[in-house]
């Protein structure tokens, strides 16, 4: 009898432990239900790490509208600088108890995070959400959020590049790479550079040079492999280096977007290749441009094709509030959410927003140019190990720039390293 009691106690303890463990596992991870839950039925707190940029402020300003429809979903924003974001996200994705229930992913991260299982596929949620119209997002932006045929991120905002120029100085938009080089040279004076460049080692150098490559008629990938030992790449590189020598501000080898923007807004440079949403910043009468506000215009990169960057909303696999996270994402990235966001100054992602009266009312020309830009744009990297591949190519470009390597050697090394990295 005594032995039987012991067995019973053991069984009871085992059952209790099993129940506790089951409880733990269900509370630590929650995969989104694929029902596209109704507004009133969803509740929870969604913690998300955002970059400290204007688009974050715009989304933050729309939270009251969201809560009018979803009163039981609380969205908590934590902001950080770009340098901190990826590491914080990876720490959260791999932790037993996550810090974030919703994530925004920069385009080079999507492939790696999807393969690592850090983020959930969203296909079922998209299909179950009435009127979401995923196909309405511009095709290049959709492609960035997809991996192995599944959707892991829906577009938040684009950062496609374009040519920003001073309309009082540039009489005709350059249509080719040679015209761009000639325009930059002709605009260079003792007090003002023709073009503010951003050849900073790594991502920035590749991002800027990628536009020159497209303008020269080249491409980054050929038959699924990185191919940079081409005449177009060589011409792009030679023009890029020559333009720096003849038309860029002196001692700007280490410059990034902020430096170039500052140079343009302080009348020290006449043009720059930058993110399309830098234009409103430059033309803001209360901003840094002062009397120059309103004189800046945006054009597609000569040749029509440009480098595309974007941020996507994604739901971590270990999110504690997947349903609430999707409720927010599907609201902010819906057609009406996009309309509100773009009207407030956010960078567009959906095709329909370009014909939306509210969104286009303020500056129709600007939005028309962005539509042109988004319809012919490509990211720097496709597939996995993108951060490493972009850094490797950007380092080689910078090496050619710094005179450490010849153009041919730098391009050959960039191609070899990029393919090796992406094959791993």
């Amino acid at each position, binding site marked *: 009898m005594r032995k039987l009691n012991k067995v019973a106690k053991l069984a009871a303890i085992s059952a209790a432990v099993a129940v506790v463990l089951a409880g733990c596992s269900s509370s630590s991870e929650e995969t989104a239900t694929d029902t596209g839950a109704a507004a009133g039925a969803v509740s929870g707190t969604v913690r998300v790490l955002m970059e400290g940029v204007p688009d974050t402020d715009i989304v933050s300003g729309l939270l009251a509208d969201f809560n009018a429809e979803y009163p039981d979903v609380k969205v908590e924003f934590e902001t950080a600088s770009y340098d901190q974001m990826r*590491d914080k996200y990876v720490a959260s994705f*791999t932790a037993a108890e996550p810090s974030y229930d919703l994530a925004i992913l920069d385009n080079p991260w999507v492939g790696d995070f999807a393969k690592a299982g850090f983020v959930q596929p969203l296909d079922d949620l998209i299909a179950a959400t009435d009127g979401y119209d995923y196909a309405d997002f511009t095709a290049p932006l959709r492609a960035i959020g997809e991996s192995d045929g599944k959707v892991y991120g829906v577009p938040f905002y684009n950062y496609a590049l374009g040519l920003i120029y001073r309309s009082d100085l540039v009489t005709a938009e350059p249509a080719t790479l040679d015209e761009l080089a000639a325009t930059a040279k002709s605009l260079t004076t003792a007090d003002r550079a023709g073009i503010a460049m951003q050849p900073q*080692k790594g991502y920035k150098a590749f991002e800027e040079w990628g536009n020159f490559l497209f303008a020269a008629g080249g491409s980054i990938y050929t038959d699924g492999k990185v191919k940079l030992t081409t005449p177009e790449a060589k011409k792009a590189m030679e023009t890029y280096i020559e333009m720096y020598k003849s038309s860029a*501000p002196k001692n700007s080898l280490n410059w990034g977007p902020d430096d170039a923007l500052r140079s343009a807004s302080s009348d020290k440079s006449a043009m720059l290749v930058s993110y399309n949403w830098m234009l409103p910043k430059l033309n803001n009468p209360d901003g840094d441009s002062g009397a120059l506000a309103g004189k800046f215009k945006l054009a597609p990169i000569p040749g029509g094709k440009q480098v595309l960057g974007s941020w996507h909303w994604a739901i971590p696999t270990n999110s504690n509030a997947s349903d609430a996270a999707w409720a927010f994402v599907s609201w902010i990235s819906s057609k009406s959410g996009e309309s509100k966001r773009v009207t407030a100054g956010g960078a567009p992602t959906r095709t329909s927003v370009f014909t939306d009266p509210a969104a286009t009312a303020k500056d129709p020309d600007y939005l028309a140019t962005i539509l042109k830009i988004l319809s012919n744009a490509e990211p720097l990297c496709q597939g996995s190990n993108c951060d490493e591949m972009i850094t490797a190519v950007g*380092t080689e470009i*910078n090496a050619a720039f710094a005179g*450490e390597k010849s153009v041919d050697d730098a391009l050959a090394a960039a191609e070899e390293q990029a393919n090796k990295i992406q094959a791993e």
Partner: protein
Amino acid sequence: MSFRLKLMLPLLAVFTASVGYPLLYAFYLSLTNYKITARYNTRLVGLKQYIATLQDPNYWNALQVTGTFVLLAVFIEFWLGLFIALALQKQKRIRNFTRSFLLTPMFVTPIAIGLLFRFLLHQQLGVIPTFLDKFGFSYDFFGPGKALYSIIFIDVWQWTPFMVLLLLAGLEGLSRSPFEAAKVDGASAFFTFRKITLPLLVPVISVAVLIRALDAMKVFEYVFAITRGGPAIQTMTIQYYTYQTGIQFYRLGLASAMSYLLLIIVMVIVVILFKRIESTRKNP
């Protein structure tokens, strides 16, 4: 267990937990192909990561850059520090104020110093380029062939006070009698410095140089805040390269092997230096 051993137990426990475990875990990682984004594929690969590191030209470049940085920075800091320490030793008035003022850079976190100099030397915003411009000079502080020296200059600015602190303490601890004897014998100031001050100071110099060199080998913040290893890979120090490999590119197995190889190199240098200090102490 002896009483002495029991007294050591708390220290041993803390040491095992805080140093031993991370070291052992990093060693285990260095024998695997661990990648943060491919954890499902982790397996033991033996010495493959070590061989890959030794065959990586960028690793050797990073070692060379770091070596140049350490040698030049510590050399300048030592001589400048010694010069200032000798001057401070002779100072009669406001000694405490001068000493605390000189030590200030040391108390600021290196990442803040990196950002400070990034803006001070910035072509558009910096006071120094603007000042140079007024006199018709132009110097690209972070340009090719110059960036590493700018980083060294920043290190010298921040860490010379550390040398001053140690060397001044050493100078003030020296017995006065040899100096008084030399003075009576009519020895010149330079002769006294070369034949008495420097030899007597050797133990302090050895420790100061060793500590500073080991610290300089960890240079990361200035590179992170200013150059990110560029132009090209001219300021790619070993710590930044390891960080890039392990954190930015997720390859923690490879980064662990890089760290272990660096640990071996540092250990060899430290053992050699300690032996030299020991032999100097025995046969001054």
